[in-house]
Structures are given as structure tokens and as C-alpha cells.
């Protein structure tokens, strides 16, 4: 039975940009904010929202891959602090060390993430416990490294990049685009991406199809660690130094953005595009509340409630789909009642 072609256009949109409703919410928030919130609709405010959202976007992209495999990475906050202090320590204000520092920092994040991934994949234990433990260890190392104080400084060329605009666009947003493009390409256009979805969808079946589930999981955690460390570099452009607690709060914000962006916590569904929408929603909630003078305290409550809602909605739809599929079953073998004629 032929279907209208709009259907495949929608599914293509969803593959790259995430669920339509996420972007509907983003659009509605922009409209509502412009109408209802003073100072929201200013170009400078949009630029500020964009600048503030980029570090979270970098972390959340990595987190998306982990959640797509069916895991969760709670260590991203500590990894971000590590990336922030390590890169600033290595750079120490020298222009010539920029690339060296960034490269080494990202490698450190990759290695730390891969270690968590190895433990998760090999010991087959819940990833949240492993990464909770890893978060403590990494944070301890950060404190040891920085003597618990502000540490290092960015090269002059990086200072203020976090607040700069290139034309009407924030510099950080433009710098994010290549990263986003690569992430989307890996997700939708490579074997690795496809195997991430398969691993999260059903690891046993993925294994039967010859996919190394272990390798996929390790790679996802490594990517998450590397990107969180990179986000630490990005945030130094806004902080102007290395702060041992730079990452505080990024763990839950990242999970919130990914979940709001339509990626299922059970794995196998969703993607980076929706996560960007989720990041924008989180950033705009923060912006609204800041503009309205609502305390950050309420923002925490709001995030908790949003996750509750996402969890309940997810569990509800899961139950409903399973039920519907059961109810649609034929009686055993009833369709093939009569044997076809000979010949």
C-alpha cells in the first residue's frame, strides 16, 4: 500500500534534526519569550543564550552517544573540570601551546572515558555506578592537580572568544558547527553510528549480527569523555582560567538535554539533532528564569520535574506499544489456516 511521500520527509528530518515536537517547543518558546519576557527578543540576548549553550551542547553530544548505546555517563561534569584545568595548566597563557594543550586534554578525556567504558562493557555492570565512581576519582585527581585552586590561564587568542560574536553570530556557535556536522555524520552515515543504534536497540541481536558490542560501548564512553574534556577547553574561554569545579551541574544538565531531545534512556532511539533542541530548551529555560529574576534554585526543581515527565511519558508509551502489539497478534497460526493447493 503506497503512502504519501511526506512520511519519508518527516523521517529524514527526524534522523538529522530530531523529533519535530522538540523543535516545535523551541519555536514556541522563542515566540512566547519574545512576547512575554522583557529583553528576550534582543539580538544580544539571543547571542548570550547561544554562547552559554555551547559548552553544554558539546557535553550533551557525547552523552547522546552513550545513552544511544543504552548506558549513561555521570562522569561528564568531572571530566569537564579535568579538561578545563588540564588544558589551562598546559597552556599557561602561551599562544604556542594552544593546539598541544587541546590535543593532550582531549586525549586524556578519551582515555578516561574509554576506561569507564571498558569496565562497563567487560564487567557488564550498570554504567551509572561505574561513572559515578569514575567521577569521584577524576574530581579527586583534578583537586590534586590544581591544589584545589584556580589553575592556569588560556592563551590570549582564546580569552573572550567565549563572548565574541562573528557578525551577528556568536563565535562559539560557529565553532560548534563543524563538530555537530561530524557527530551527525558519524551518527547517520557511518557503520559505527549504525552499530551504536543496534547495540542500544538490542545488544544480543547486535552480537548475533556480528557487531562487537564491547567495542561500540567503549567507543561511546571514550567519545563522551573526550567531548566533555573538550567542553572544558571551551568553558575556559568564558571563565578565563581553569576552575576545579568548572563542571558542576553539567552531568544532570547534559542528561536532561538528551532526554528532552527525544533520546530514549533505554537506548537505540533518538540522536544528536534532538539533543541540540534539548540544549536550546534548557538554555532558554535558564535565560527566562534569569531575565525574570527567578532563582537558580527553582531551575533545579524545574529540571527534576522535566526529567520526571520524560521518564513517565517514556514508560507509558513503552507499556502502550507493547500492549498494542500484543493485542494486534493473530491467534497462533490462524492466518495460514488452509494449506495452499498443490503445485
Amino acid at each position: 500500500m503506497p503512502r504519501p511521500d511526506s512520511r519519508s520527509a518527516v523521517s529524514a528530518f527526524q534522523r538529522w534534526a530530531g523529533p519535530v515536537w522538540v523543535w516545535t517547543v523551541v519555536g514556541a518558546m522563542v515566540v512566547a519569550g519574545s512576547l512575554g519576557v522583557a529583553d528576550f527578543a534582543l539580538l544580544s540576548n539571543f547571542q548570550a543564550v547561544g554562547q552559554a549553550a555551547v559548552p553544554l551542547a558539546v557535553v550533551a553530544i557525547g552523552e547522546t552517544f552513550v545513552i544511544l548505546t543504552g548506558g549513561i555517563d555521570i562522569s561528564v561534569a568531572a571530566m569537564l573540570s579535568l579538561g578545563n584545568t588540564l588544558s589551562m595548566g598546559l597552556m599557561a597563557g602561551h599562544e604556542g601551546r594552544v593546539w598541544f594543550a587541546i590535543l593532550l586534554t582531549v586525549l586524556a578525556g578519551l582515555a578516561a572515558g574509554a576506561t569507564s567504558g571498558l569496565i562497563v562493557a567487560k564487567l557488564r555492570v550498570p554504567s551509572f555506578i561505574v561513572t559515578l565512581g569514575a567521577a569521584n576519582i577524576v574530581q579527586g585527581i583534578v583537586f590534586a592537580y590544581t591544589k584545589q585552586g584556580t589553575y592556569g590561564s588560556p592563551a590570549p587568542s582564546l580569552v573572550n572568544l567565549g563572548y565574541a560574536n562573528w557578525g551577528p553570530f556568536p563565535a562559539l556557535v560557529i565553532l560548534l558547527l563543524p563538530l555537530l556536522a561530524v557527530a551527525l555524520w558519524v551518527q547517520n552515515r557511518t557503520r559505527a553510528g549504525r552499530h551504536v543504534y543496534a547495540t542500544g536497540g538490542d545488544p544480543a541481536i547486535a552480537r548475533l549480527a556480528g557487531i562487537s558490542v564491547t567495542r561500540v560501548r567503549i567507543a561511546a564512553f571514550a567519545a563522551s569523555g573526550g567531548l566533555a574534556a573538550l567542553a572544558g577547553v571551551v568553558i575556559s574561554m568564558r571563565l578565563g582560567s581553569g576552575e576545579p569545579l568548572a563542571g558542576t551541574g553539567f552531568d544532570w544538565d547534559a542528561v536532561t538535554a538528551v532526554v528532552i531531545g527525544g533520546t530514549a534512556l533505554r537506548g537505540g532511539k533518538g540522536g544528536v539533532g534532538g539533543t541540540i533542541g534539548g540544549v536550546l530548551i534548557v538554555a532558554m529555560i535558564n535565560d527566562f528564569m534569569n531575565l525574570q529574576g527567578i532563582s537558580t534554585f527553582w531551575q533545579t526543581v524545574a529540571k527534576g520535574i522535566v526529567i520526571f515527565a520524560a521518564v513517565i511519558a517514556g514508560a507509558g508509551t513503552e507499556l502502550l506499544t507493547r500492549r498494542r502489539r500484543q493485542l494486534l497478534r493473530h491467534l497462533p497460526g490462524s492466518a495460514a489456516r488452509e494449506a495452499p493447493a498443490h503445485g
Partner: protein
Amino acid sequence: MSTTLTATGTPVLEASRIGKRFGFTVALDEVSATFRAGEIHALLGENGAGKTTLTRIIAGVESADTGELRFAGERVDFASPAAALAQGIGLIHQELSLIPSLSVGANVFLGREPRTTRGSVDDRAIHRQTSAILRYVGASCRSGDVVESLPLAQQQLVEIARILDRRPRLLIMDEPTASLSRENVARLFEIMRELRDSGVAIVYISHEIQEVFAIADRVTVLRDGRVTMTKPISETKADEVVRMMVGRELEALFPPRKQVARSPQPVLEVAGLSLPGHFEDVSFSLYAGEVVGLAGLVGAGRSELVQSLFGAPPSPLTPRDLGGSVSVHGRRVTISSPREAIAQGIGLVPEDRKTEGLLLTLALAENITLPQLAELARYGVVDRARGARLAAEQIARLRIVTPSAAVPVRSLSGGNQQKVVLAKWLAKRCSILLLDEPTRGVDIGAKTEIYAFVRELAENGTAVLFISSSLPEILGLSDRILVMRRGRIEAEHEPDTTSEERLLSAALGLAREERPEHAEA
């Protein structure tokens, strides 16, 4: 990927003296078979005869204990289904091996995605090739559809397409038609004939005997893990095949039946019971003191029926999805949970004792007293002395061999574990006992003992309904036999006037004349 196909009649796969055990059960005992190019080879046998185990070994899902496989003349031992598939052995079975959240195309090419020169996955090629193979198998879904959004029949066709796209030289089909529509089945048979004519060797497992005679060239019958017959289909008939399927050996002894006067009122009366997708319009009655056997093929809906009677239909369905009525001791009841079933005096010995019957890591005593935990307590505090006495009683009564009531059930043998499951309900003194495959994976000694207990229970006034896939067991133990097929009760037989062949024919749908002569009111 084109494979050079062998000339018709040359052996593609030779299995010789394959042996496989699961615990006590010998699944395959020196089975040898040859599957030839250009031949559709049907594999028949009762539930548990070893057909599925044999195909799983050939396709690399499991490995054999003994014997060897030769594929295209070379000795092989596949580590995984992926490895077997890469070599040209494709297995299509009922359990879908699709990732529900991925698209049809992604599933068809999972683990072997074609790539463009730039290194990306070539989605155009996937789309093109998937569309072609879907058209070929007669599926109406599209390459871009997400698998979980499709009806079961389409998913089954995707599964078939996924395997056929690999152009296997040996194609194993384990009941591929179970969820397909008539048109789909007709198309599938056309494809099977085409493949055969192009030199593919096909192994075909089905419970639909008519289908087998319509399509197969050769038939091999398995019984108790041994080959009992292998013949060209033209040289045999349905009744011979059925004869070769039945006659399983069973050394266990059955206790003599004693005629108990039937009370006028049934203990359990089921009228028009239905559960969407599992069974439909099931009616029967159960009287005190009788043992009723429930025969039928796996998937006929027997387990789901007893689970539903016990207030636990298969998840995510709930007792609210049940239609029809159930009466216990003449009073109409709504059983919405096992708790209520137990309160009505019903007990269930489930099919799989390890995942449904026993808390393996906990003590014997704790398992035996679990159904009456609350009654053993005063003010919420468990009377452990009473519990221990109760457990000791049952251990003695059922002659459970154990060092003490304190050891974890896991440490017992299969037969003794099964007795513990029985003991749960004996201790509870149920008036209706539902048994689902009560002697599976149990040694002969324990089987004999279990039969004796069941009979003893009946003589003491319990009404017993038991499911078994072993026809000798059904014949030996039952006072009456109900045959279930495709979710309906198809026939009622008396053990004295029926035979294994007649029961199997009814279960297979070959004998339609035997309707229940008196609809139990």
C-alpha cells in the same frame, strides 16, 4: 554476493552422528542427515523431538557435543550465526532477530553495511537492494519503515528478506509461516520452489502437515532425538509420518486409575474464555478427583490458558483483557491476580521452574512456604517453627532428597527441584492444581514419583489439569484429554479409546471429525 550453486542432488550439508545433551535430556542422539542442493527437505517431529536443536547447531547458534558437520564437503564448526550466514547458511526462525528501533533497510544490512568510496554507509544502495528484496518476498513495508511500527507478519517477512538477501546455499526455515497471511504463505512457497530450482538446499520445519506434503521433496522424522524415517515425500503418506512421530519411549510407570464418582458440580468451569492473540472461546469443566490432560503443540495457547486461569496472562496483557467467564465451585469469580487465584484454591506449577517456579538462591523451606507466607504469620511475624514443620512434612511426603530444608533449592537435582514446586501447592492444599509440563527435564525415577503424587492428589479430591508435550504421559496419566490447537479446544478424547496417533492428528489438525461430543455445561 553471488554464490556458485551446486548441481541438484549434490549434498550441501552433511550432519553425521550429531549428539547434544541438555542436563538430563538427550536432545540429539547420533543424528545424521544430508541436505541436498535443489531439494526441499522437511524436518518433522513432536515438540522436543530435536528438530530445532539440530537446526540451531547447523546454523551456529549452538554447538554439538559430538559428531561433525560438513558444509560443501568441508568440515565446519561455526562460532556464531553471523559466521554461518557469511558462509552461506541462513536460518529463519520464529524468534525475530531484528532490532525493533532500526529501519527495515538497516536491519537487512546490519553488520555488513555497504560503504561508498568516501567511507559513509551507502544508504542508496541499501534502499535499492532492500526495496528489491522486499518486493521479491511480497512484503508491503518499505525500506525506511521502523521495524517496531510494523505488524508481526511484515516483521516476519523482513526477517525472511534479511536472510534471503544473503543468498544462502542452505536455507533453514523453522516454522516461518506461523504468523503469515495466506497470500504471504503462497508467495513464500513460490519463492521456496524458485530457490530450490536454482539449486539451494532448503530445510523446512512446520507443524502444518498438509503444507509439508504440498511443498517438500523429502521428509525426515525425528523422535526423541533420533531419526526414525527419511524418505522422498512421494513414497510416504501423512498417516505414516504421524506414526513415525509418535511412540516416544517412556520407561516411567503410571499409577493405576481409580474411578472416582464424579460429583454433580464441577470444581472449575470455564466458559468462552478468550485472550487476544492467544486463545479463543475456550470452554471446559474440571471435576473433583479427576486428572485432565491438555495436549497440543507448542504455541497452541495451552500455557497462556493456564496462566490466565491463575490470574497471570502473559505480559503486558492483564486479566482485564480476558473475555468469557470462570466459575469455581459453582460461583462465578474474577481472578485478577495469582493472589486471588490462590485464595480460590488454585495452584500453578509453571512451565519453567527456574524462572517461574523457584527462588533458586533461597532455602527449600522458604520456597515451600512462600504461597502461605501471610498465613504463617501472627501480627506480621513469621512463625518459623510452623514453617519448618510444614516444609519437613512436604519433604518427607514427596521424598525430596536434600541434606536439609535450609539448603538453597539451586543445589538440588532437577527432579527434586520440581518436587519442591509441587510441594508449594501440596502444602497449601489446593483444590484445583494446574500443572504445566510437570516432568520436563526430570529423571525417570522422579517422573514416576510425580505421576504417583498427581494420582494420589486426585484421589484425595483435587482437580488436576495438566499440560504435557509427551503423548505417552498424557495417555498414561489422564482421565480425560483435551486437545488444543491454535488457541481453541479442538477435541476431547478418552484415554481408553484414543491413541497417540489420534491425539497427534488432532493437534496437527488432520482429524477434524472429533469435536467434543458433549459441550460440558
